[in-house]
């Protein structure tokens, strides 16, 4: 940890917040467009609280912008020249100081920080919030667990301004996990007022209302239609955002979203079909920013428990039969980072994701099929998530066509978005395509979920291999102790094994594409891939 950087940025921050604009009463109609940002997207939040039961991804965006965490990440310049979060550098948000010890980390809270209702932020609130995150179950608890944050006892409010997190064990993911969306700080006194015996954490209240200290507060929310956010002028977490008001409209039709952008009615949209992004980029009227998913891949998975995909030769044949380049061209319009066709003698890197060495080679695939004992192929189903049909459907159609050439006759099975998780979790789908990405950008983090023999729900192939498990466990331990050499060896080891066994065939690293008007600036890529309103500005 580079404590000095942290402190430097913290003081700069304090200076910039010294002058803050007074809150002005401004009725919606009088609001000038200049200070308002209109965002359009396909779907909206179902819950304003990330701790809530079944909060969806758009809900995370609200949480990110309306709540503060103790710490956040610094920015750096990404590979595409745009601001990109720096996974190794932290900056304070509610904390003004972070002190990492051997088995604990201590934070000093900013004294001036207040919640949106004016009450000061205390260590008690932080304690209550983190207790909440590890206790409510579901996704938040799971995510906290990913950084070995599992018990309320780990969180200690030393005094009003001092807060300590005790480590359950040595884990290099613990501190980064405190900078994700989940460990947000909630106004505990306010929420407790609305808590009931049945609902001790006041989840019903926070579902509809934001109770944080963040840069924005939700002024109105019509589920499925619109979220209006207004700036919190007393925000202490960073420099005062330039945009006073955010209007976030749900526009289900992608064509309409594109039209709105092109006609200059909407300011930002980030889920458009790739093709539109390519064309908009060519038009040059809008700013288009494409960033590869951090730690995320689109892949074709195969169920290794059952025939015929229990046969390694069949899996390799599939890996040789996938029309990679066609998918890149016709489905993604080049807007993705290929994960195939690495030079045959290229060394394996200590990185994830990285390309594998397979290429489309029908002859080789056929040979492998014959070797595997399926010279005439077989019938199976190819499933995909209908929620992402725009990419998945043509991808599957191309794959289906290509697989047919080596005798694998597939029926395409469209699974409605809501059932996709359920279907995957049954671990019975023989052949499917999916995306997995982790917030914490570390190779072992990805592999522990997706390849480890403890068979987590994300190991949808039911892949189990002693070799891989050993490499993964080794890498986790080495990371915790800072043993870089072992770590590098183990990472290379599990990547190589995964590419030899091929239980899932990585296709490409998807891009997060954001289209905005030329006058909009300040877009930054975050691990959660949602928008950070705090840096966005217009004009």
């Amino acid at each position: 940890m580079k404590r000095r950087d942290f402190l430097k940025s913290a003081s700069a921050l304090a200076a910039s917040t010294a002058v803050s604009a007074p809150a002005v009463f401004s009725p919606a109609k009088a609001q000038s467009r200049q200070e308002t940002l209109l965002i359009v997207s396909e779907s909206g939040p179902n819950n304003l609280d990330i701790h809530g039961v079944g909060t969806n991804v758009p809900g995370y965006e609200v949480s990110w912008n309306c709540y503060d965490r103790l710490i956040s990440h610094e920015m750096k310049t990404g590979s595409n020249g745009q601001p990109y979060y720096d996974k190794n550098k932290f900056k304070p948000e509610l904390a003004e100081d972070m002190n990492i010890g051997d088995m604990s980390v201590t934070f000093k809270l900013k004294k001036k920080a207040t919640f949106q209702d004016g009450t000061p932020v205390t260590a008690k609130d932080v304690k209550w919030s983190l207790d909440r995150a590890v206790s409510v179950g579901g996704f938040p608890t799971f995510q906290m667990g990913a950084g070995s944050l599992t018990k309320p006892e780990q969180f200690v409010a030393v005094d009003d301004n001092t807060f300590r997190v005790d480590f359950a064990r040595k884990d290099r993911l613990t501190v980064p996990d405190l900078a994700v969306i989940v460990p947000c700080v909630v106004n505990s006194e306010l929420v407790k007022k609305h808590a009931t015996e049945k609902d001790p954490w006041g989840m019903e209240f926070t579902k509809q209302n934001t109770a944080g200290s963040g840069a924005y507060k939700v002024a109105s929310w019509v589920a499925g239609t619109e979220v209006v956010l207004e700036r919190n002028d007393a925000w202490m977490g960073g420099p005062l955002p330039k945009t006073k008001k955010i209007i976030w409209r749900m526009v289900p039709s992608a064509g309409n979203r594109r039209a709105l952008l092109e006609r200059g009615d909407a300011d930002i949209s980030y889920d458009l079909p790739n093709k539109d992004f390519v064309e908009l980029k060519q038009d040059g009227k809008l700013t288009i920013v494409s960033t590869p998913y951090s730690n995320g891949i689109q892949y074709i998975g195969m169920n290794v428990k059952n025939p015929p995909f229990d046969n390694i030769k069949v899996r390799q044949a599939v890996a040789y039969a996938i029309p990679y380049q066609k998918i890149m061209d016709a489905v993604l319009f080049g807007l993705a980072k290929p994960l195939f066709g690495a030079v045959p003698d290229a060394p394996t890197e200590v990185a994830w994701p990285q390309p594998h060495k397979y290429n489309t080679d029908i002859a080789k695939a056929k040979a492998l099929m014959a070797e595997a004992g399926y010279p005439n192929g077989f019938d199976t189903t190819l499933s995909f998530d209908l929620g992402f049909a725009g990419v998945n459907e043509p991808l599957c159609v191309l794959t289906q066509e290509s697989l047919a050439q080596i005798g694998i006759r597939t029926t395409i099975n469209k699974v409605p978005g809501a059932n996709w998780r359920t279907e995957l979790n049954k671990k019975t789908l023989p052949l499917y395509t999916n995306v997995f990405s982790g917030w914490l950008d570390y190779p072992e983090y990805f592999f522990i979920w997706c390849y480890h023999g403890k068979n987590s729900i994300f190991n949808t192939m039911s892949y189990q291999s002693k070799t891989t498990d050993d490499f993964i466990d080794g890498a986790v331990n080495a990371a915790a102790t800072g043993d870089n050499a072992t770590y590098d060896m183990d990472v290379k080891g599990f990547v190589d094994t995964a590419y030899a066994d091929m239980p899932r065939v990585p296709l490409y690293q998807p891009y997060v594409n954001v289209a905005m008007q030329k006058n909009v600036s300040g877009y930054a890529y975050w691990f959660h891939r949602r928008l950070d309103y705090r840096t966005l500005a217009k004009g």
Partner: protein
Amino acid sequence: MTDISLSPHGAAAAKAQSNSIFRHARYVVAENPVTGAAFGLFILIALCALIGPYVVPYDPLASDTSATLASPSFKHWFGTDQLGRDIFSRVIVATRLDFTIAISSVMLVFAMGGFAGIAAGFFGGWTDRIVGRISDTIMAFPLFVLAMGIVAALGNTVTNIVLATAIVNFPLYVRVARAEANVRRDAGFVQAARLSGNGDFRILLMHILPNIMPIMMVQISLTMGYAILNAAGLSFIGLGVRPPTPEWGIMVAEGAGNIISGEWWIALFPGAALMIAVFCFNLLGDGLRDLVDPQRRT
């Protein structure tokens, strides 16, 4: 059949009868050119469904990533889609599937709703009450949403689309069949049939049904179009047939997003095919109505 022993001049009579129908048809067509055009279209569509897959220039499923999103040209009359598939071939081949969906759903609903309606109209009383309740209950649903629900619940296969479309149309058939049967229930020829020793069921089948058939044909023709639209609507929200099977609705849905970006042909041609087919069935229904209207047959 007894009819054979009944008429030694059977063939001649049949010929005379068909002549008269033919003459009537010709008259209707001549008087109403739109119906004539619809008949022509219908034949064209039927032809596409029958021989379409054997005459199209390209494999409707074959992708060609070197020629994606090509605008209409001599090579690809209707252009190509995102995966470089020939839209003309896909539109033609889709005819068979859409036709099949339409026809089988209509058959099914005719078998269910038609008979239930006739029985309700003829017997009245409890039969009528039960059938009426069922169809009222179905009517109380927004029909398209009910179809969606059925397909979502049972899974999106062609069979279920057919079933859903049939169920949704059930009240329409019941209504028409019931009304027609009810009118004829006390007609002289029904009384006469009773006097001739026909049981109720026989009267229903031999006397009422053949007389209602013409009106039902109109209904069938009209609902054929609706069945196609219904299937297309289901496809639009993602509950249609499985890819990559060509189907008009799903093709329009796929191409819908491309209209704004200028690739109008992807949605337009299947949309036009869809419209022409539905249009044809609708006009045909109107034409058939004129054809069977007893007032115009004198």
